[in-house]
Protein backbone atom coordinates (compact mmCIF):
# COMPACT_ATOMS: atom_id res chain seq x y z
CA UNK A 1 0.00 0.00 0.00
CA UNK A 2 1.28 3.49 -0.78
CA UNK A 3 1.81 5.64 2.28
CA UNK A 4 -0.58 8.30 3.50
CA UNK A 5 0.64 11.76 2.43
CA UNK A 6 1.58 14.12 5.26
CA UNK A 7 2.52 17.80 4.97
CA UNK A 8 2.66 21.06 6.88
CA UNK A 9 -0.59 21.35 8.83
CA UNK A 10 -1.37 17.61 8.89
CA UNK A 11 -2.81 16.64 12.28
CA UNK A 12 -3.94 13.42 13.89
CA UNK A 13 -4.08 11.43 17.11
CA UNK A 14 -1.90 8.71 18.61
CA UNK A 15 -3.51 5.26 18.53
CA UNK A 16 -0.46 3.45 19.91
CA UNK A 17 3.10 4.37 20.82
CA UNK A 18 6.42 2.98 22.01
CA UNK A 19 9.85 4.24 22.99
CA UNK A 20 12.68 2.43 21.22
CA UNK A 21 15.57 1.93 23.64
CA UNK A 22 17.47 -0.72 21.69
CA UNK A 23 17.80 0.60 18.15
CA UNK A 24 19.41 -0.54 14.93
CA UNK A 25 22.91 0.90 14.28
CA UNK A 26 21.41 3.59 11.98
CA UNK A 27 19.28 4.95 14.83
CA UNK A 28 21.70 4.31 17.69
CA UNK A 29 22.52 8.02 18.08
CA UNK A 30 18.81 8.89 18.31
CA UNK A 31 17.79 6.27 20.91
CA UNK A 32 15.73 6.42 22.99
CA UNK A 33 13.12 7.86 20.66
CA UNK A 34 9.34 7.85 20.53
CA UNK A 35 7.39 6.23 17.70
CA UNK A 36 3.64 6.27 17.25
CA UNK A 37 0.92 5.03 14.95
CA UNK A 38 -1.02 8.17 14.08
CA UNK A 39 -4.61 8.23 12.85
CA UNK A 40 -4.53 11.17 10.44
CA UNK A 41 -7.46 13.59 10.58
CA UNK A 42 -9.08 13.20 7.19
CA UNK A 43 -8.15 9.53 6.84
CA UNK A 44 -5.22 7.13 6.74
CA UNK A 45 -2.55 6.16 9.23
CA UNK A 46 1.19 6.67 9.43
CA UNK A 47 3.98 5.45 11.65
CA UNK A 48 6.17 8.38 12.66
CA UNK A 49 8.66 9.52 15.24
CA UNK A 50 7.32 11.93 17.87
CA UNK A 51 9.61 14.85 18.68
CA UNK A 52 10.69 14.56 22.34
CA UNK A 53 8.32 11.61 22.66
CA UNK A 54 8.86 9.75 25.93
CA UNK A 55 6.84 7.11 27.78
CA UNK A 56 5.63 9.97 30.01
CA UNK A 57 4.91 12.66 27.41
CA UNK A 58 3.04 10.48 24.90
CA UNK A 59 -0.47 9.27 25.72
CA UNK A 60 -3.12 7.32 23.86
CA UNK A 61 -5.42 9.60 21.81
CA UNK A 62 -3.00 12.55 22.18
CA UNK A 63 -3.28 15.13 19.39
CA UNK A 64 -0.18 15.53 17.20
CA UNK A 65 0.83 17.72 14.28
CA UNK A 66 3.37 17.29 11.49
CA UNK A 67 6.71 18.93 12.31
CA UNK A 68 9.21 18.04 9.59
CA UNK A 69 10.55 15.25 7.39
CA UNK A 70 14.12 13.96 7.41
CA UNK A 71 15.93 11.07 5.71
CA UNK A 72 14.01 8.58 7.84
CA UNK A 73 10.53 9.97 7.14
CA UNK A 74 8.06 12.25 8.92
CA UNK A 75 8.40 13.57 12.47
CA UNK A 76 5.32 14.75 14.39
CA UNK A 77 5.08 16.74 17.63
CA UNK A 78 2.58 16.72 20.46
CA UNK A 79 0.08 19.59 20.30
Amino acid at each position, binding site marked *: *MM*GTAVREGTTGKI*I*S*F*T*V*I*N*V*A*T*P*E*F*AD*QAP*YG*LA*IIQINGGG*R*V*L*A*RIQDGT*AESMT*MDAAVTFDHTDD*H*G*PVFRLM
Partner: protein
Amino acid sequence: MREMVIVGAAETKFGRSEQSYRELAVDAGRKAMEDAGVDASKIESLVLGSFSPGTFVHQEHVAPLVASELGLDHVPSTRTENACASGATAIMSGLMQIGAGMHDVVLVVGVEKMTSTPIGEATSILAEAADWESEAKAGLTFPGVYALMARAYMHRYGKNRDILDAVAIKAHGNGVGNPYAQFQKAITVEDIRESMMIADPLTLYDCSPISDGAAAVVLASKDVAGDFKRSGIPFLGFGQASDALALHEREEITSLPAAQRAGERAYKMAGIRPDDISFAEVHDCFTIAEIIATEDLGFFEPGTGGDAAVSGRTGRDGPIPINPSGGLKAKGHPVGASGVGQVVESVFQLRGEAEGRQVDGVEYALTHNVGGSGATCVVTILGKGE
Protein backbone atom coordinates in the same frame (compact mmCIF):
# COMPACT_ATOMS: atom_id res chain seq x y z
CA MET B 1 -5.68 -34.72 -1.44
CA ARG B 2 -3.68 -37.74 -0.26
CA GLU B 3 -3.42 -38.30 3.49
CA MET B 4 -0.03 -37.24 4.83
CA VAL B 5 1.96 -38.13 7.92
CA ILE B 6 5.20 -37.31 9.72
CA VAL B 7 7.39 -40.41 9.95
CA GLY B 8 10.51 -38.81 11.41
CA ALA B 9 11.22 -35.76 13.57
CA ALA B 10 14.30 -34.26 15.22
CA GLU B 11 15.84 -30.99 16.29
CA THR B 12 19.05 -29.60 17.67
CA LYS B 13 19.19 -27.81 21.00
CA PHE B 14 18.34 -24.16 20.37
CA GLY B 15 20.64 -21.47 21.68
CA ARG B 16 24.19 -20.29 21.12
CA SER B 17 25.80 -23.14 19.20
CA GLU B 18 29.34 -23.99 18.18
CA GLN B 19 27.91 -25.63 15.04
CA SER B 20 27.89 -23.79 11.72
CA TYR B 21 24.76 -23.18 9.63
CA ARG B 22 25.32 -26.27 7.51
CA GLU B 23 26.29 -28.43 10.49
CA LEU B 24 23.07 -27.50 12.29
CA ALA B 25 20.93 -28.27 9.21
CA VAL B 26 22.69 -31.58 8.56
CA ASP B 27 22.49 -32.58 12.23
CA ALA B 28 18.70 -32.10 12.37
CA GLY B 29 18.11 -33.58 8.90
CA ARG B 30 20.18 -36.71 9.58
CA LYS B 31 18.54 -37.30 12.97
CA ALA B 32 15.06 -36.97 11.43
CA MET B 33 15.99 -39.57 8.79
CA GLU B 34 17.36 -41.85 11.53
CA ASP B 35 14.14 -41.39 13.50
CA ALA B 36 12.18 -42.46 10.40
CA GLY B 37 14.58 -45.35 9.76
CA VAL B 38 15.44 -44.24 6.22
CA ASP B 39 18.66 -43.45 4.43
CA ALA B 40 19.28 -40.60 2.02
CA SER B 41 18.26 -42.68 -1.01
CA LYS B 42 14.60 -42.68 0.13
CA ILE B 43 14.29 -38.87 0.24
CA GLU B 44 12.73 -37.56 -2.99
CA SER B 45 12.80 -33.82 -2.32
CA LEU B 46 14.18 -31.31 0.20
CA VAL B 47 12.42 -28.13 1.31
CA LEU B 48 14.52 -25.82 3.47
CA GLY B 49 12.97 -23.03 5.54
CA SER B 50 15.44 -20.23 6.28
CA PHE B 51 14.93 -16.49 6.71
CA SER B 52 18.14 -14.65 6.00
CA PRO B 53 21.27 -16.82 5.75
CA GLY B 54 22.68 -14.38 3.18
CA THR B 55 22.96 -11.67 5.81
CA PHE B 56 23.47 -13.80 8.93
CA VAL B 57 26.16 -16.13 7.53
CA HIS B 58 26.86 -14.77 4.01
CA GLN B 59 25.39 -17.80 2.29
CA GLU B 60 22.45 -17.89 -0.11
CA HIS B 61 21.46 -20.84 -2.32
CA VAL B 62 21.25 -22.92 0.82
CA ALA B 63 18.78 -25.65 -0.23
CA PRO B 64 21.15 -27.51 -2.60
CA LEU B 65 23.97 -26.88 -0.13
CA VAL B 66 22.09 -28.79 2.58
CA ALA B 67 20.82 -31.45 0.14
CA SER B 68 24.38 -32.12 -0.97
CA GLU B 69 25.78 -32.16 2.58
CA LEU B 70 23.07 -34.68 3.52
CA GLY B 71 24.04 -36.90 0.57
CA LEU B 72 20.62 -36.68 -1.06
CA ASP B 73 20.69 -38.06 -4.60
CA HIS B 74 20.32 -35.00 -6.87
CA VAL B 75 16.83 -34.40 -5.50
CA PRO B 76 14.96 -31.18 -6.21
CA SER B 77 15.73 -28.78 -3.35
CA THR B 78 14.00 -25.48 -2.64
CA ARG B 79 14.28 -22.82 0.03
CA THR B 80 11.18 -21.06 1.37
CA GLU B 81 11.33 -17.60 2.92
CA ASN B 82 8.42 -16.04 4.83
CA ALA B 83 10.35 -14.27 7.59
CA CYS B 84 9.84 -16.04 10.94
CA ALA B 85 7.25 -18.34 9.30
CA SER B 86 9.83 -19.69 6.82
CA GLY B 87 9.86 -23.03 8.65
CA ALA B 88 6.13 -23.77 8.62
CA THR B 89 5.99 -22.47 5.05
CA ALA B 90 8.58 -25.12 4.16
CA ILE B 91 6.31 -27.76 5.71
CA MET B 92 3.33 -26.39 3.71
CA SER B 93 5.42 -26.66 0.55
CA GLY B 94 6.47 -30.22 1.34
CA LEU B 95 2.87 -31.22 2.04
CA MET B 96 1.78 -29.78 -1.30
CA GLN B 97 4.49 -31.71 -3.15
CA ILE B 98 3.18 -34.93 -1.62
CA GLY B 99 -0.48 -33.94 -1.85
CA ALA B 100 -0.11 -33.21 -5.54
CA GLY B 101 1.39 -36.66 -6.10
CA MET B 102 4.83 -35.39 -7.15
CA HIS B 103 6.66 -37.17 -4.33
CA ASP B 104 5.98 -39.74 -1.61
CA VAL B 105 8.74 -38.80 0.86
CA VAL B 106 9.98 -35.25 1.45
CA LEU B 107 12.52 -33.99 3.98
CA VAL B 108 11.81 -30.56 5.48
CA VAL B 109 14.53 -28.74 7.40
CA GLY B 110 14.26 -25.36 9.15
CA VAL B 111 17.50 -23.64 10.16
CA GLU B 112 18.99 -20.31 11.20
CA LYS B 113 22.41 -19.30 12.53
CA MET B 114 22.04 -15.91 14.23
CA THR B 115 24.45 -15.61 17.14
CA SER B 116 27.58 -14.99 15.10
CA THR B 117 26.06 -11.63 14.09
CA PRO B 118 26.44 -8.60 16.43
CA ILE B 119 23.13 -7.77 18.16
CA GLY B 120 22.66 -4.38 16.44
CA GLU B 121 23.13 -5.92 13.01
CA ALA B 122 20.81 -8.81 13.92
CA THR B 123 18.16 -6.26 14.95
CA SER B 124 18.53 -4.61 11.52
CA ILE B 125 18.26 -7.94 9.68
CA LEU B 126 15.12 -8.90 11.60
CA ALA B 127 13.62 -5.45 10.91
CA GLU B 128 13.81 -6.25 7.20
CA ALA B 129 10.80 -8.56 7.77
CA ALA B 130 8.78 -5.41 8.54
CA ASP B 131 7.67 -2.98 5.81
CA TRP B 132 10.95 -1.26 5.02
CA GLU B 133 9.57 1.95 3.54
CA SER B 134 7.00 2.71 6.21
CA GLU B 135 8.30 0.92 9.32
CA ALA B 136 11.97 -0.11 9.47
CA LYS B 137 13.23 2.99 7.64
CA ALA B 138 11.32 5.13 10.16
CA GLY B 139 13.16 3.48 13.08
CA LEU B 140 10.76 0.70 14.02
CA THR B 141 12.37 -2.49 15.34
CA PHE B 142 10.61 -5.84 15.84
CA PRO B 143 10.28 -5.40 19.59
CA GLY B 144 8.88 -1.97 18.67
CA VAL B 145 6.15 -3.43 16.43
CA TYR B 146 4.97 -5.76 19.18
CA ALA B 147 5.27 -2.96 21.75
CA LEU B 148 2.77 -0.98 19.66
CA MET B 149 0.43 -4.00 19.74
CA ALA B 150 0.95 -4.51 23.48
CA ARG B 151 0.14 -0.90 24.36
CA ALA B 152 -2.95 -0.84 22.12
CA TYR B 153 -4.13 -4.16 23.60
CA MET B 154 -3.65 -3.08 27.22
CA HIS B 155 -5.39 0.25 26.53
CA ARG B 156 -8.32 -1.33 24.67
CA TYR B 157 -9.01 -4.00 27.27
CA GLY B 158 -7.92 -2.14 30.43
CA LYS B 159 -5.00 -4.44 31.34
CA ASN B 160 -1.60 -3.81 32.91
CA ARG B 161 1.64 -5.70 32.37
CA ASP B 162 0.66 -8.50 34.77
CA ILE B 163 -0.61 -10.34 31.69
CA LEU B 164 2.81 -10.10 30.03
CA ASP B 165 4.58 -11.23 33.21
CA ALA B 166 2.36 -14.32 33.42
CA VAL B 167 3.33 -15.40 29.90
CA ALA B 168 7.07 -14.87 30.46
CA ILE B 169 7.08 -16.71 33.80
CA LYS B 170 5.13 -19.66 32.36
CA ALA B 171 7.43 -19.86 29.30
CA HIS B 172 10.60 -19.99 31.39
CA GLY B 173 8.99 -22.47 33.81
CA ASN B 174 8.17 -24.77 30.89
CA GLY B 175 11.67 -24.34 29.45
CA VAL B 176 13.09 -25.93 32.62
CA GLY B 177 11.64 -29.28 31.48
CA ASN B 178 12.89 -29.09 27.89
CA PRO B 179 16.44 -30.27 27.12
CA TYR B 180 16.21 -28.57 23.69
CA ALA B 181 15.48 -25.15 25.23
CA GLN B 182 17.91 -22.23 25.15
CA PHE B 183 16.77 -21.13 28.64
CA GLN B 184 16.15 -23.87 31.20
CA LYS B 185 15.83 -21.55 34.16
CA ALA B 186 12.70 -20.26 35.93
CA ILE B 187 12.25 -16.50 36.39
CA THR B 188 10.33 -14.32 38.84
CA VAL B 189 8.42 -11.03 38.60
CA GLU B 190 11.44 -9.36 40.25
CA ASP B 191 13.70 -10.55 37.41
CA ILE B 192 11.32 -8.92 34.92
CA ARG B 193 11.07 -5.67 36.92
CA GLU B 194 14.86 -5.36 37.02
CA SER B 195 15.40 -6.19 33.35
CA MET B 196 16.27 -3.75 30.60
CA MET B 197 13.51 -1.93 28.70
CA ILE B 198 13.84 -2.80 25.00
CA ALA B 199 10.82 -1.05 23.46
CA ASP B 200 8.42 0.36 26.03
CA PRO B 201 6.41 -1.47 27.45
CA LEU B 202 8.38 -4.58 26.41
CA THR B 203 11.39 -5.56 28.52
CA LEU B 204 14.12 -8.08 27.80
CA TYR B 205 11.95 -10.83 29.32
CA ASP B 206 9.10 -10.05 26.94
CA CYS B 207 11.32 -10.83 23.93
CA SER B 208 12.39 -14.14 22.43
CA PRO B 209 16.17 -14.46 22.15
CA ILE B 210 18.59 -14.50 19.22
CA SER B 211 19.33 -18.20 18.63
CA ASP B 212 21.00 -20.84 16.50
CA GLY B 213 19.23 -24.08 15.73
CA ALA B 214 17.66 -26.48 13.28
CA ALA B 215 14.66 -28.79 13.20
CA ALA B 216 13.58 -31.37 10.63
CA VAL B 217 10.69 -33.66 9.74
CA VAL B 218 10.32 -36.47 7.23
CA LEU B 219 6.91 -36.14 5.54
CA ALA B 220 5.34 -39.05 3.70
CA SER B 221 2.18 -40.03 1.91
CA LYS B 222 0.12 -42.35 4.07
CA ASP B 223 0.25 -44.85 1.16
CA VAL B 224 3.92 -45.53 1.91
CA ALA B 225 3.85 -44.91 5.67
CA GLY B 226 4.23 -48.62 6.38
CA ASP B 227 7.82 -48.49 5.06
CA PHE B 228 9.11 -46.60 8.10
CA LYS B 229 10.30 -47.47 11.57
CA ARG B 230 7.77 -45.26 13.36
CA SER B 231 4.02 -45.10 12.82
CA GLY B 232 3.08 -41.81 11.24
CA ILE B 233 1.69 -38.74 12.99
CA PRO B 234 -1.08 -37.47 10.68
CA PHE B 235 -1.53 -33.91 9.42
CA LEU B 236 -5.27 -33.40 9.85
CA GLY B 237 -5.41 -29.82 8.69
CA PHE B 238 -3.29 -26.87 7.68
CA GLY B 239 -3.85 -23.30 6.57
CA GLN B 240 -1.80 -20.33 5.52
CA ALA B 241 -2.77 -16.66 5.15
CA SER B 242 -1.21 -13.28 4.42
CA ASP B 243 -1.74 -9.61 5.30
CA ALA B 244 -0.12 -6.18 4.93
CA LEU B 245 3.45 -6.12 6.20
CA ALA B 246 2.96 -2.81 8.00
CA LEU B 247 1.03 -3.03 11.27
CA HIS B 248 -0.57 0.40 10.85
CA GLU B 249 -2.05 -0.59 7.47
CA ARG B 250 -4.14 -3.40 8.99
CA GLU B 251 -7.76 -3.15 10.09
CA GLU B 252 -6.82 -4.37 13.56
CA ILE B 253 -3.69 -3.92 15.66
CA THR B 254 -4.76 -5.97 18.68
CA SER B 255 -5.27 -9.20 16.70
CA LEU B 256 -3.68 -10.85 13.66
CA PRO B 257 -6.30 -11.30 10.91
CA ALA B 258 -3.92 -13.63 9.01
CA ALA B 259 -3.70 -15.91 12.06
CA GLN B 260 -7.49 -16.00 12.33
CA ARG B 261 -7.81 -16.93 8.65
CA ALA B 262 -5.03 -19.55 8.74
CA GLY B 263 -6.63 -21.05 11.85
CA GLU B 264 -10.11 -21.17 10.28
CA ARG B 265 -8.69 -22.95 7.23
CA ALA B 266 -6.85 -25.52 9.34
CA TYR B 267 -9.84 -26.21 11.63
CA LYS B 268 -12.12 -26.60 8.61
CA MET B 269 -9.78 -29.07 6.91
CA ALA B 270 -9.34 -31.07 10.13
CA GLY B 271 -13.05 -30.97 10.90
CA ILE B 272 -12.44 -30.07 14.54
CA ARG B 273 -12.95 -27.01 16.77
CA PRO B 274 -10.67 -25.02 19.08
CA ASP B 275 -12.21 -26.86 22.08
CA ASP B 276 -10.89 -30.14 20.69
CA ILE B 277 -7.21 -29.06 20.73
CA SER B 278 -5.20 -30.71 23.52
CA PHE B 279 -2.31 -28.20 23.47
CA ALA B 280 -0.77 -25.65 21.12
CA GLU B 281 2.71 -24.46 20.21
CA VAL B 282 2.15 -20.81 19.25
CA HIS B 283 4.46 -18.09 17.95
CA ASP B 284 5.32 -16.20 21.15
CA CYS B 285 8.14 -14.13 19.69
CA PHE B 286 7.01 -11.59 22.31
CA THR B 287 4.79 -12.17 25.35
CA ILE B 288 1.92 -10.12 23.86
CA ALA B 289 2.06 -12.30 20.73
CA GLU B 290 1.11 -15.41 22.72
CA ILE B 291 -1.88 -13.66 24.30
CA ILE B 292 -3.13 -12.48 20.91
CA ALA B 293 -2.49 -15.92 19.37
CA THR B 294 -4.67 -17.68 21.94
CA GLU B 295 -7.51 -15.31 21.01
CA ASP B 296 -6.97 -15.50 17.23
CA LEU B 297 -7.04 -19.31 17.40
CA GLY B 298 -10.37 -19.33 19.25
CA PHE B 299 -9.19 -20.62 22.64
CA PHE B 300 -10.29 -17.41 24.37
CA GLU B 301 -12.48 -14.41 23.56
CA PRO B 302 -10.74 -11.20 22.45
CA GLY B 303 -9.42 -9.33 25.49
CA THR B 304 -9.39 -12.40 27.77
CA GLY B 305 -6.25 -14.25 26.64
CA GLY B 306 -4.07 -12.35 29.11
CA ASP B 307 -6.39 -13.12 32.02
CA ALA B 308 -6.31 -16.79 30.99
CA ALA B 309 -2.51 -16.76 31.26
CA VAL B 310 -2.66 -15.05 34.68
CA SER B 311 -5.14 -17.63 36.01
CA GLY B 312 -3.00 -20.58 34.82
CA ARG B 313 -5.40 -21.84 32.14
CA THR B 314 -2.52 -22.02 29.66
CA GLY B 315 -0.12 -23.81 32.01
CA ARG B 316 1.10 -27.32 31.26
CA ASP B 317 -1.55 -28.72 33.63
CA GLY B 318 -4.24 -26.24 32.57
CA PRO B 319 -7.22 -26.89 30.30
CA ILE B 320 -5.37 -25.67 27.19
CA PRO B 321 -1.58 -25.83 27.65
CA ILE B 322 0.17 -23.25 25.49
CA ASN B 323 3.83 -23.77 24.59
CA PRO B 324 4.67 -26.69 26.88
CA SER B 325 8.10 -26.60 25.19
CA GLY B 326 8.80 -23.13 26.61
CA GLY B 327 7.88 -21.54 23.28
CA LEU B 328 10.04 -19.20 21.27
CA LYS B 329 10.49 -17.19 24.47
CA ALA B 330 12.38 -19.89 26.41
CA LYS B 331 13.05 -22.66 23.89
CA GLY B 332 14.62 -20.08 21.57
CA HIS B 333 13.89 -18.55 18.18
CA PRO B 334 16.32 -19.53 15.40
CA VAL B 335 13.95 -17.89 12.93
CA GLY B 336 13.83 -20.43 10.08
CA ALA B 337 13.83 -23.38 12.49
CA SER B 338 11.09 -22.19 14.85
CA GLY B 339 8.03 -23.29 12.84
CA VAL B 340 9.51 -26.72 12.13
CA GLY B 341 10.51 -26.97 15.79
CA GLN B 342 6.89 -26.42 16.85
CA VAL B 343 5.86 -29.41 14.72
CA VAL B 344 8.74 -31.54 16.03
CA GLU B 345 7.69 -30.77 19.61
CA SER B 346 4.10 -31.70 18.71
CA VAL B 347 5.29 -35.06 17.33
CA PHE B 348 7.19 -35.74 20.57
CA GLN B 349 4.09 -34.85 22.59
CA LEU B 350 1.71 -36.92 20.43
CA ARG B 351 4.02 -39.94 20.70
CA GLY B 352 4.13 -39.50 24.47
CA GLU B 353 7.90 -38.97 24.34
CA ALA B 354 8.19 -35.37 25.58
CA GLU B 355 10.12 -36.37 28.66
CA GLY B 356 10.04 -33.81 31.45
CA ARG B 357 7.31 -31.76 29.76
CA GLN B 358 4.71 -34.29 28.60
CA VAL B 359 1.14 -33.02 28.47
CA ASP B 360 -1.41 -35.59 29.71
CA GLY B 361 -4.08 -37.04 27.42
CA VAL B 362 -2.90 -35.55 24.13
CA GLU B 363 -5.19 -36.14 21.12
CA TYR B 364 -4.80 -33.09 18.87
CA ALA B 365 -1.90 -30.62 18.63
CA LEU B 366 -1.97 -27.21 16.93
CA THR B 367 1.03 -25.19 15.72
CA HIS B 368 0.93 -21.46 14.85
CA ASN B 369 3.93 -19.88 13.12
CA VAL B 370 3.93 -16.15 12.29
CA GLY B 371 6.07 -14.18 9.84
CA GLY B 372 6.82 -10.54 10.58
CA SER B 373 4.21 -8.94 12.81
CA GLY B 374 1.46 -11.05 11.21
CA ALA B 375 1.84 -10.68 7.44
CA THR B 376 2.23 -14.47 7.17
CA CYS B 377 0.67 -17.12 9.35
CA VAL B 378 0.71 -20.90 9.01
CA VAL B 379 -1.40 -23.12 11.28
CA THR B 380 -1.18 -26.92 11.32
CA ILE B 381 -3.24 -29.49 13.23
CA LEU B 382 -1.79 -32.90 14.00
CA GLY B 383 -3.51 -36.02 15.32
CA LYS B 384 -2.30 -38.96 17.36
CA GLY B 385 -2.22 -41.54 14.58
CA GLU B 386 -2.66 -45.28 14.94
